[in-house]
């Protein structure tokens, strides 16, 4: 079966920490920074479990500030 690898790049400076991507993620990849904040004082989102990402772009689709980039690789068995 083909294996899907994904990765997200989050613009932490632009993120407002609204938590919608964390809720939307089906594989629990994302979390909000528990302590760290960005320049505007928001607890920005980060990939806490990057290995679980499947690159479905659910997080980026619901992000109101368009600060998530998504990458996906589909590895097919030889």
């Amino acid at each position, binding site marked *: 079966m083909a294996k899907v690898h994904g990765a997200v790049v989050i613009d932490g400076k632009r993120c407002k920490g609204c938590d919608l991507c964390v809720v939307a993620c089906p594989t629990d990849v994302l979390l909000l920074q528990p302590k760290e904040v960005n320049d505007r004082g928001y607890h920005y989102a980060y990939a806490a479990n990057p290995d679980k990402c499947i*690159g479905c772009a659910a997080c980026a689709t619901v992000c109101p500030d368009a600060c998530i980039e998504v990458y996906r690789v589909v*590895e097919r068995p030889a």
Partner: protein
Amino acid sequence: MTTEEIIQPQNKVYSRPRLLDERDTHYCPGCSHGVVHKIIAELLDEMGLENKTVGVAPVGCAVFAYNYIDVDWVEAAHGRAPAVATAASRLNPQNLVFTYQGDGDLAAIGTAETIHAANRGENIAMIFINNGIYGMTGGQMAPTTLLGMKTATTPYGRTAELNGYPLPISNILATLDGTCYVTRQAVHTPAAVRKTKAAIKKAFENALAKRGTSVVEVVSTCNSGWKLSPAKSNEWMVEHMFEKYPLGDLKTPSEEPKN
């Protein structure tokens, strides 16, 4: 496979739309406006309409929409966006003209303009953000506020005796002969965002094909006005708003052009 191997330009499946301006929006964290702006920016880019689009911005939270989407915009007086859009589309019929309005703009002060533009069947697309509250001015009651909903001006909840009933303006617009497409969508889940994108695309196509007025209502959240977190607001919207404003198409277009 390492993260560095995955993060390569050829593997990119989603990025910030090209037509969305680099500056940050002034919207509160989790505001639905950002998602709808993003959808519009993506669609205008995908449909190649960058140089033939005129947006009409409202008064309300989206008053600065012209700062965020990199196409031509006109700023209208409060509620008058459909009237301005009428002029813009009649003078340059080859252009796509759309209005972007909130519920205070479209359903309160601009009711007359909205209904008459739709009744004339102007070839414009109206995007209507309905969050049941006046967000920008501090959370006052809007015509679309639900019964029992607490706002700054209805601190004990809206009552039918004192404030009347919530106004389902899209249902009213759907009964007019001038409208060709009226639909109600939301942007609370990835699937809903994709549906809203398809609906707005259809509305833009109708405007370009001169089929009449298209209205896309987006039932939205105002987490600051509702005094809830963004995620909780979405839950509250599903539980309460969808009862009064159920999602789905209210009127679908016929294939024949109207004029």
